[in-house]
């Protein structure tokens, strides 16, 4: 009952307006590659210092949740993830937009983002202290395997090209090694230039890897970027169709939201791993596995619900343990500290008013995503589809330059973005997937830190290999990794043997499936 009282604080007109403003700004920022939630939060944090603490936090939470959702727009409409969390959304989002279902894809992304965001926020509200203990079970070895799980899952998703996917992921890991070493402080792969000492900025790298190949493809062919079919059946929000698809994918939706929240709890893991794990789970559970990557709505349902669920999950260690899981969490944590709020398990009792108002604001902001997202989405798809290439190409190019420059006000980031983009394009041209490179770059530091720390502990204990496989969580993750890598090969082997043994039955089955 007391909690409901705190919720009424969040419903004050000022807080409602701030939440609405935050979601709208966050969505637009997230939709533009290079302009991240971290940047917008960092810019707006000082303004919140003069506000009432609860109002300021409501606005920051709204920007964060809106930005994470906004990443889906660029992923679906331009094949470029606005945020790292939206990498997996490109797999099915862009093919859907390409075939004329962009409005449906955006509506689905909006609905499931709201569902995922609410799941994460409700779990934060009801289960924060016990969930925080889960995060403490993850040591260096578990983090290493979690990062490797993300990389192997994306490699395994490269159908028929698993080895190429693995090599691409390893290439991404090597890119993440450039600069000062995470552990040890060595200068690595800098080729004697000062520009590389700081390493390759993840966002600049992502812009290059995704945007530059898109630009090359746009100018290379005369085909339209998107080709929306004409007619009333494809116009509007397509809400009825979206709800019907959600009805068929309800288990996928709930599973992805819960898994997204749980992964969000792990500091550093974030939306990129969550969306990949849930995407892979959705593909495995689906009867129509081959349609994934070709515009299956279930892919968007899995990734978008999971990455928005990580917002609530990420606040669990931030609020209970004072360990921010992501850079935006760290900024919000800083804002909380500036407001004089003491972080820790007692936050939910001693400073319940601000904490619960903040969570209520997060829930409100998530609900605001529905009208804001549907409204923006309705026009975004048509607008992007109607923009001629002669305007789209220079506009995307300009955004890539501004986006990569503004991260650190560094010209070298733009150069690195372009170089990585050209490399990604060449690699794509010779049949290697580029998403594993991006994920390798994102997860590289987590993987290396976990690996080296486990190596050090193992060496001190005299059992390096054992240390990597000691805990049940590590063994569980390793089992999933092995299954992910060997699963497709074993499945096709099993199918081939079955075909040899029962050729007539198998032929009948394949006919029936057609």
């Amino acid at each position: 009952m007391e909690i409901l009282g705190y919720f009424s604080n969040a419903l004050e007109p000022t807080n409602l307006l701030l939440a609405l403003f935050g979601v709208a700004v966050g969505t637009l920022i997230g939709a533009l590659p290079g302009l991240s939630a971290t940047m917008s939060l960092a810019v707006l944090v000082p303004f919140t210092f003069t506000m009432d603490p609860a109002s300021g936090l409501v606005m920051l939470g709204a920007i964060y949740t809106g930005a994470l959702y906004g990443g889906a727009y660029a992923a679906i409409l331009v094949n470029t993830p606005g945020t790292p969390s939206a990498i997996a959304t490109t797999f099915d989002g862009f093919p859907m937009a390409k075939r004329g279902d962009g409005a449906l894809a955006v509506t689905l992304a909006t609905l499931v983002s709201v569902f995922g965001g609410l799941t994460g926020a409700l779990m934060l509200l009801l289960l924060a202290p016990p969930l925080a203990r889960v995060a403490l079970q993850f040591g260096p070895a578990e983090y290493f395997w979690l990062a490797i799980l993300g990389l192997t899952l994306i490699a395994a998703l490269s159908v028929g090209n698993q080895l190429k996917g693995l090599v691409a992921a390893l290439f991404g890991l090597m890119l993440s090694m450039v600069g000062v070493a995470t552990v040890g402080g060595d200068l690595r792969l800098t080729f004697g230039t000062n520009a590389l000492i700081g390493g390759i900025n993840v966002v600049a790298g992502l812009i290059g890897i995704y945007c530059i190949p898109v630009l090359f493809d746009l100018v290379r062919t005369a085909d339209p970027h998107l080709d929306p079919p004409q007619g009333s059946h494809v116009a509007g929000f397509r809400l009825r169709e979206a709800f019907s698809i959600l009805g068929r994918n309800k288990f996928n939706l709930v599973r992805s939201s819960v898994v997204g929240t749980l992964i969000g709890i792990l500091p550093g893991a974030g939306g990129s791993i969550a969306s990949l794990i849930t995407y892979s789970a959705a593909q495995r559970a689906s009867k129509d596995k081959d349609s994934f990557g070709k515009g299956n709505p279930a892919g968007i349902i899995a990734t978008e619900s999971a990455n928005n669920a990580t917002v609530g999950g990420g606040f669990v260690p931030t609020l209970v343990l004072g360990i921010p899981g992501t850079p935006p969490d760290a900024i919000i944590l800083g804002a909380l500290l500036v407001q004089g709020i003491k972080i820790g398990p007692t936050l939910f009792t001693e400073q319940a008013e601000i904490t619960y108002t903040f969570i209520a604001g997060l829930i409100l902001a998530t609900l605001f995503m529905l009208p804001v997202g549907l409204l923006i989405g309705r026009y975004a798809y048509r607008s992007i589809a109607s923009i001629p290439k002669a305007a789209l190409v220079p506009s995307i190019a300009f955004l890539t330059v501004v986006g990569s420059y503004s991260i650190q006000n560094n010209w070298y980031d733009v150069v690195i973005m372009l170089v990585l983009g050209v490399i990604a394009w060449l690699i794509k041209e010779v049949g290697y997937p580029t998403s594993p490179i991006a994920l390798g770059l994102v997860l590289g530091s987590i993987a290396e830190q976990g690996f080296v720390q486990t190596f050090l502990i193992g060496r001190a204990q005299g059992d390096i290999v054992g240390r990597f496989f000691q805990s049940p969580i590590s063994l569980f993750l390793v089992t999933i990794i092995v299954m992910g890598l060997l699963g497709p090969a074993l499945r096709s082997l099993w199918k081939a043997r079955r075909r040899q043994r029962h050729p007539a039955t198998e032929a009948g089955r394949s006919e029936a499936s057609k």
Partner: protein
Amino acid sequence: MTLLLSNFAPPLCFIALSVFVWTDADRYTALGSVFPRTMAAAMAICSVLILIRSAAVLRANGRTSSPAERGGTESLGRPLSLLVVFGLWLFAMNTIGFIVSSAVAFVALTLIAERETFAPKRLLLIMVVGIGGIVGVAALMSDVLMVPLPRGILF
């Protein structure tokens, strides 16, 4: 020749990269080198496996399909022009200034991307709106978001 190149050149490049990373790790401390070496070894092994598989497919089928071949035979002229404009843009950004270089690059990229019949009015409209957008974004960056853009000798 193209088929051989697209199937064998990438894994060979990755093997060369892993050898480079492995040898470069000689300069690092034990802590700094353990991860690069492990990943370099993994990359070399995977690349060798790709080579073996490509050779086996080549032997079995007599030829392998090249992704470039599958993708059609569109000209590379426009992508290369785009790359040149991008390179010049980045170079000019620091020398003549962000706004001017971006405006010039915008015009050049518009012309590269234009596929339809030459329509001066339409192109002019795109350029005017685009350049207006560039000035707007530059103002937003430098005055609101406090991101100082390169000024150069012009602006």
